[in-house]
């Protein structure tokens, strides 16, 4: 007999529903639906609607069944995963802490700024010359007189060299319109050398012999309400007429000094400044006779009038990496100090053939690695937030604070990771419970000889010796065979006698 294609629709729907059911229960559900569908299709009841309609309604109900089964499985999995002491709950807690740290870092411009790379072209080839090492990169340390000499005497060392000196200035644009700025007086070649002049200076104008003043975009927005008409106008800075020449994007100027306006002076105007005025010197070593400082810095020695002066040349990239380096230093120290606060051993576990499969061993190590990674992320972002977020420290001070605030959390975080790992079942990764003290007091002069913890799912026992001995020095895991499972919390469903 030829079947109507519409008669096959319920069967097709039931089979589709079966695909939604988890594999473990699929065969049982499919068999029950098939059997019921057969009876629905062959129902002999004249008062009922046509059998085809009944079958269609039944098969649509199977889709609901499948969704219920799927949701029920998800609920039970989520319940197990978030159970107190579970591995998922542990990783979730650490992830939340790490995400909160990242969120605070993203919301704090100062903290975010120090971690971003210097946006200048070829920052690795640009060095800051200081007379005081890394701390000297944060405070002016080079007299203007030295800069003047270097512009002519060190041509073989540096292809270009620029000077800037931060100061607080006030701009008088017109009567009753005075703006306070953290302004730097800089040599005219600084933008060209840093490679930001062509791309980011959004306006320029003929200065007519006056020095050119470039504003940070935030200043232009805050004090001039983004008025484009301000460019080209003459303003007064400390009695000197200047031309407002353009605007620079915020955040690009992460050179030391916290500058938000730049006054570019020509060589003649710089010569009029006092020779003892201290500032920052940035040099380009791209086409110099010496190779670029791969290690981040090199020194320059100058002998003048019998006096030897030493200067450090530190690349801008290396300065930007200072917080990361200080964190890495704390990490190294914490790893070195870790054996002093806890044992590094994770205990004795049976070999693969004796109970723990390769997949379980791999999962356990992945869990350990995930905890290390998350603790590193938590400590790194929160220490960065703490060091650079609330107060505007310079890079060196902030890096020092970061090193101090990250060392102890790293040390005790790693200690917690190892202790937590030792207290977990290697099979289900849940925390072990029900500690029981075992042993006889008189045998070894201790109140007990060890402690035993048990996995609530019945996977095994952990024996921890109270005093390490030559025959039992580390904690030992004992796998329980499946016959023990009926004694534990998650037994198979209980069967009761039918009536």
């Amino acid at each position, binding site marked *: 007999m030829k079947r109507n294609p519409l008669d096959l629709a319920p069967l097709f729907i039931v089979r589709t529903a079966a695909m939604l059911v988890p594999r473990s229960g699929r065969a049982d559900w499919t*068999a*029950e639906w*098939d*059997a*019921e569908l*057969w*009876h*629905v299709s*062959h*129902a002999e009841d004249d008062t009922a609607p046509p059998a085809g309609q009944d079958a269609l*309604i*039944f098969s*649509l*109900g*199977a*889709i*609901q*069944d499948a969704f*219920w*089964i799927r949701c*029920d499985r998800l609920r039970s999995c989520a319940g197990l995963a978030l159970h107190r002491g579970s591995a998922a709950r542990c990783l979730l807690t650490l992830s939340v802490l790490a995400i909160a740290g990242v969120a605070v870092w993203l919301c704090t411009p100062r903290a975010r700024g120090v971690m971003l790379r210097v946006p200048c072209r070829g920052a690795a080839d640009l060095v800051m010359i200081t007379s005081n090492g890394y701390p000297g990169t944060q405070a002016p340390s080079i007299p203007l007189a030295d800069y003047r000499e270097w512009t002519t005497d060190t041509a073989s060392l540096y292809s270009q060299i620029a000077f800037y000196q931060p100061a607080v200035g006030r701009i008088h644009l017109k009567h009753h319109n005075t703006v306070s700025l953290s302004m730097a007086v800089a040599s005219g070649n600084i933008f060209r050398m840093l490679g930001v002049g062509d791309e980011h200076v959004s306006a320029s104008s003929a200065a007519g012999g006056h020095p050119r003043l470039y504003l940070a975009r935030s200043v232009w927005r805050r004090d001039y309400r983004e008025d484009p008409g301000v460019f080209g106008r003459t303003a007064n800075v400390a009695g000197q007429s200047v031309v407002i020449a353009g605007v620079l994007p915020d955040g690009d100027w992460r050179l030391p000094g916290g500058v938000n306006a730049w006054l570019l002076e020509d060589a003649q105007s710089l010569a009029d400044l006092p020779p003892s005025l201290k500032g920052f010197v940035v040099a380009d070593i791209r086409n110099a006779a010496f190779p670029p400082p791969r290690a981040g810095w090199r020194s320059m020695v100058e002998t003048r009038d019998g006096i030897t002066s030493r200067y450090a040349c530190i690349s801008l990239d290396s300065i930007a990496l200072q917080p990361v380096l200080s964190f890495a230093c704390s990490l190294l120290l914490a790893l070195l100090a870790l054996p002093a606060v806890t044992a590094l051993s994770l205990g004795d576990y049976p070999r693969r053939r004796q109970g723990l499969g390769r997949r379980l061993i791999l999962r356990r190590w992945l869990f350990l690695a995930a905890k290390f990674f998350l603790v590193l992320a938590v400590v790194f972002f929160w220490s960065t937030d703490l060091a650079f977020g609330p107060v505007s420290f310079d890079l060196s001070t902030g890096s020092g604070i970061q090193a101090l605030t990250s060392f102890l959390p790293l040390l005790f975080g790693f200690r917690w990771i190892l202790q937590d790992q030792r207290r977990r079942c290697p099979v289900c990764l849940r925390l072990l419970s029900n500690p029981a003290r075992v042993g006889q007091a008189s045998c070894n002069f201790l109140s007990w000889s060890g402690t035993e913890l048990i996995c609530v799912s019945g996977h095994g026992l952990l024996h921890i010796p109270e005093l390490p001995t030559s025959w039992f020095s580390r904690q030992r895991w004992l796998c329980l065979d499946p016959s023990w499972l009926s004694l534990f919390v998650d037994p198979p*469903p*209980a*069967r*009761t*006698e*039918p*009536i």
Partner: protein
Amino acid sequence: MPVEARLSHTAAMILQAIHAGHIYGFSVMAMTGLPSGTVYPAMRRLERDGLILSKWEQQSIADAEQRPPRKYYRLTRTGRATLDAVYKRYPLLEKMIPAPELERA
């Protein structure tokens, strides 16, 4: 009894239907008027809670009648005790789906 307190009217109807002799899913649906998307999950929950038991029909019986084997359900002792307790909460349940002995009476 904790199960009794949680038993909804739908679950109580299904339990009563099984007690009344409607021992497979389709007949429970027909008796209670509940759709298949409700009945089967509810029966799975009742089985999980130990109130009913399921058993597949023998393949030979199904083969003799040229149909697929069915899954039959029946009450456990706990299920029967729960049902007795549920009558206090849903007094009309017995009249809605009368058990065979009640029908005979």
